[in-house]
């Protein structure tokens, strides 16, 4: 009896709620896609940065590799390891 009386008000409200939530779903879905596209773009950016980072790391480890440093030091700069008699040990 009471429900019957409220029907004319409840029904439109529920209809509006359904409509509203449907719009929300569309909006959220759209938003999610947009954000995913953005994420993909950032991922691609990260990948290219990672590539560069890897390349730089390799380059750095090549230039700083012991064999290379030793070669340059002895051949180009005429450096040599100090012999035992060249070393001074400082006593505290």
């Amino acid at each position: 009896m009471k429900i019957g009386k409220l029907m004319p008000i409840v029904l439109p409200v529920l209809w509006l709620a359904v409509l509203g939530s449907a719009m929300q779903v569309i909006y959220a879905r759209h938003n999610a896609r947009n954000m995913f596209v953005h994420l993909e773009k950032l991922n691609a950016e990260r990948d290219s940065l990672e590539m560069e980072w890897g390349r730089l790391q390799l380059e750095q480890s090549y230039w700083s590799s012991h064999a290379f440093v030793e070669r340059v030091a002895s051949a180009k700069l005429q450096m040599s390891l100090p012999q035992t008699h060249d070393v001074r040990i400082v006593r505290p």
Partner: protein
Amino acid sequence: MKSRSSVKPRCGEYDAQAKSYRWRSSVVLGLVVLGAFGLAARAVELQLLDHGFLAKQGDDRSMRVVKIAAHRGAITDRAGEPLAISTPVDSVWVNPQELNDNIDQLPKLAKALKQDPQFLARRITSNLDREFLYLVRHMPPDQAGHIKALGIPGVNLLREYRRYYPAGEVAGHVVGFTTIDDTGQEGLELCFDQLLNGEDGAKRVIQDLYGRYVENVESIRAPRPGRDLVTSIDLRIQYLAYRELKAAMQEYRAQAGSVIVIDVDTGEVLAMVNQPSYNPNDREQLKPGLYRNRAATDIFEPGSSIKPFIMAAALASGQYRVDSVVDTSPGFLKVGTKVFEDETNLGTVDLATILAKSSNVGTAKVALSLKPEQIWKTLTGLGLGQVTGSGYPGESAGMLSSYAHWRPIGIATLSHGYGLSVTPLQLAHAYATLGAGGIKRPLSFERVSGPVPGEQVLDPKVAHELVQLMEQVIEKGGTATRAAVVGYRVSGKTGTAWKSFAGGYSTDKYMAVFAGLVPASHPKIATVVVIDEPSGDLHQGGTVAAPVFANVMSGALRLMDVPPDDLQNVPAATLVQASDTQ
């Protein structure tokens, strides 16, 4: 209508006519209603009953789930220097069926790939039953981009990661390498594969008729990148060991060699090198003979380098003290059918001299006077005949038979290092245990922080006495004077073992070994140098292996900031009082 207007119909006729019209309209109405019901039923069928099936069919034609390759973790040395890193690359793959429909584009593709067009055509046509075929693996991304830009249908790229080893040959064995599919195959890459390996992710995309990705729809699973591994290796010491071993190999024209450096306090492996070596960046070089990590997998008879362990058993038994003497005259000893001899008759000597002169007779006499169980217990306690617990793949346990089967001749043979076999890694571990005051710590290839608990396998007093005894080996008159390091006390033992082959022992093929601890007053580093078949005039452990030890150690001690403990024996000219300098 015309007939109605011209001929006035009678009443009855008109009724009949109206009746027939009503009948028709109800049929039409019925048909319309039926049609509507039919449509509604079909709509219900499509929307409610078959919806899942149809939606799936639709998605199958456009939606794709694609793999996102995960990044494999890097391997670095203890200071963070990269030993293995992954960089993204692209692999070019084709769908042979699709490409075959555009076969006229093939020369263009072959040119871009720098491949022979005929060879490429043959590969395509002989794989027509397949839908996936790699053309080139691991191309630099910018080059692969050009291939993709040609826009040939059926040609696709796959993002993968390629492993680079910046240290190359220097750390080749210890780091190991991965398969082309980026899973560990050898060495630490295999040992820590689970940790390093990431988990591939997946995403859903919408694809058009030509296989192009139109839209990224959603992420199903984010890729989980692999974790980085910080190893215990110190690349500086590793390089030093590599360089010195390589030089020694060339100088003595040896077949193979290994050097292992262990941190006594933590059980960390600071360096592990082998010769011959290989460059892991070049897959052409990956031949089993080259990439076998001899230090962990190859067993050999350690020869005299085992004598300190016999002395350890003697001291631990309580039957001997540091100053006990043994009569080694007349310089040979007959046990059963076999004669053991020294180079000269040493007479009555103490334990330190037995080690310093590497007396076979003295060691055999000591060993024979002990209970076999005591010797076995000491050797096993030091880890001989067992894997070291490092978890290194392919590690051998060596061989040590049970004392129940030992006869006197066997004990005498064992006492100078024959009839049992060890890996270089095991030998280094045993020396590290001696250096650590008898505490056996598990070997680790991962960097560890903080104190490492270990198992007390030898009385600390015995271990300390033994380290002191072994110092005489390096001092004047010992067998390894060339192992001396200026400013530091060194403790160690040489070994020169004949190599065994089927049917007996070779008389001209040797293993030259030196195992040592520095600084002797408080050991910090344990090192083993093994050189296999030095073929020059020199072949003894003291002349071939000891100099490598000395060179590596003088560098390593400096790199690790270990203060000198032997300033008395340093030439006066090299010493400077701090106040003398500015």
